[in-house]
């Protein structure tokens, strides 16, 4: 019993450590300006109000940013799956020379920061007129996502016994039919986790839109919030807090609902490389 109590105290400390910053901005986002300046500050707002959220939606392009991020996420997920599924299939089901080396090469790309590829890409895009172009931006997002997603999907495909394939092949199915009718449906969980991770990453992506987009109406949330932080004065921290809450809610909701999934695929991905 004593051990249990210690564990619970540990749970309380750890959760508080992780949740406190989020709770604190949430609390600020519900405070009035007068209460913002009160000392000592309290975690529970005395007269909670949604006015700050209203202000953010009225005075910044927050709706626009959210919609832009959403659009970028959707196209990135679709594009990434379209590329990573066939690649994962090839790595899972074909035997060919130097396969391990190619896989390693894909892994190497994952380790390279977008800052590095952002430099030349900015240069080409500027000369090709692709600055402020979502197609161009999504292509880079997809490229950034491909390595991890390919590994994740290959892992899912590897878990399907090869006998499935053989049975279907004897029945005369082409590889394409096999993939569409058997492999993809059976490995939907790994495709779902690929979707989750790609969405979270695309939502967080900052540097690429920061350098490749300079039209304010086209900013995703990550860049928009920086602008919001800069435009509001220090004394409007309650508005910045509201804007932060708006931009972190989608990711946090995803975690709450898909917690099991995320943990499982995080660990599976890491263990298999």
């Amino acid at each position: 019993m004593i051990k249990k109590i210690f564990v619970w105290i540990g749970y309380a400390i750890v959760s508080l450590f992780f949740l406190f910053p989020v709770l604190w901005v949430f609390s600020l986002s519900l405070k009035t300006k007068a209460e913002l300046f009160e000392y000592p500050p309290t975690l529970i707002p005395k007269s909670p109000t949604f006015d700050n959220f209203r202000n953010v939606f009225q005075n910044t392009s927050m709706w626009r940013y959210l919609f832009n991020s959403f659009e970028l996420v959707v196209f990135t997920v679709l594009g990434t799956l379209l590329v990573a599924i066939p690649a994962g299939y090839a790595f899972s089901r074909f035997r060919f020379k130097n396969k391990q080396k190619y896989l390693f090469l894909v892994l190497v790309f994952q380790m390279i920061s977008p800052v590095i590829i952002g430099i030349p890409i900015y240069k080409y895009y500027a000369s090709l007129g692709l600055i402020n172009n979502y197609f161009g931006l999504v292509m880079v997002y997809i490229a950034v996502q491909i390595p991890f997603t390919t590994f994740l999907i290959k892992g899912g495909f590897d878990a399907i016994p090869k006998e499935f394939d053989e049975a279907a092949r004897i029945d005369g199915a082409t590889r394409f039919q096999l993939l569409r009718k058997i492999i993809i449906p059976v490995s939907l969980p790994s495709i779902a986790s690929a979707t989750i991770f790609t969405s979270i990453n695309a939502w967080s992506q900052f540097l690429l839109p920061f350098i490749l987009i300079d039209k304010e109406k086209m900013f995703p949330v990550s860049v928009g919030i920086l602008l919001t932080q800069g435009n509001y004065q220090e004394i409007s921290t309650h508005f910045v807090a509201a804007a932060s809450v708006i931009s972190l809610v989608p990711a946090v909701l995803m975690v709450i609902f898909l917690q099991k999934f995320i943990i499982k695929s995080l660990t599976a991905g890491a263990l298999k490389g």
Partner: protein
Amino acid sequence: MKSGKLLERWWIWLIPMVAILGIFYLYPLLNVFFLSFTNSEIGRNDFVFTFSKYVNVFTNDELWHVLKVTFLFVGFSVVFQLILGLFTAMLINQNQFGATFVKVSMISAWVVPGIITGVVWKIMYSSSNWGVINYFVKLLGFDSIPFLYTPGWALFSVTLANIWRGTGFSGIMQYAALRAIPEQLYEAASIDGANSWQKFWKITLPQLKPMLLINVILITIYTFNTYDSVYALTRGGPGNSTTVLSLITYKSVFKYLDLGTGSVYAILMIGLSATFTIIYSRLMKKEN
């Protein structure tokens, strides 16, 4: 029928991936390499080939300063994410009521976009009344701390925010590894009369070692590539005190418009990332 035949070839399936990685990774990488030997600038088309950017970067004190900052930022982040991650992993592995809640809170911190992490912590570090950390500092009887405004404190502050963000990931990984340790090992040790402390040092840690090593490399790479939370917190300042390697790379190109120098820094980043990756793959091979 023809297309059926074509689909029997493995490389057909890889074409989309190779095309995209080729255009958006390989070609840019070669280009960065090329640019690092030029004096190119943003907004100017002519350039000459030169080694001078390398010479400038390597003879300038700025590089050593940036490497020191990067080393401290990455080093402290990795050590604390690892230790705190192990601690939380062992706690949730007790599987008491509430463990799921702890897991959710850990991953929540991890999925908060880096930029928002920076914005949120900047609010908490403030010296104004809403700066909750300074509220606690004052409660303990100290003067309010200029968390983001003196070089030493600023580096501490960006590192702490990064530890907060990354510990969840590290903890979840180690939790998975803990669960994979066979229960029999502990039972056998209990029969031999080992206490919890001995079990931790003789069973848990050795069994966990492979995952800890993998974790070290992964966290090192992630932290090394981090720029967004630092950017939102301090923009690399005051002065250059929180300018890590990825930030100076960004600044050289997009603030000072110096493509050549930025590319030299980028090459340096590639070299370091490559080293980490090779270590990582060696560890993976050993595991399999």
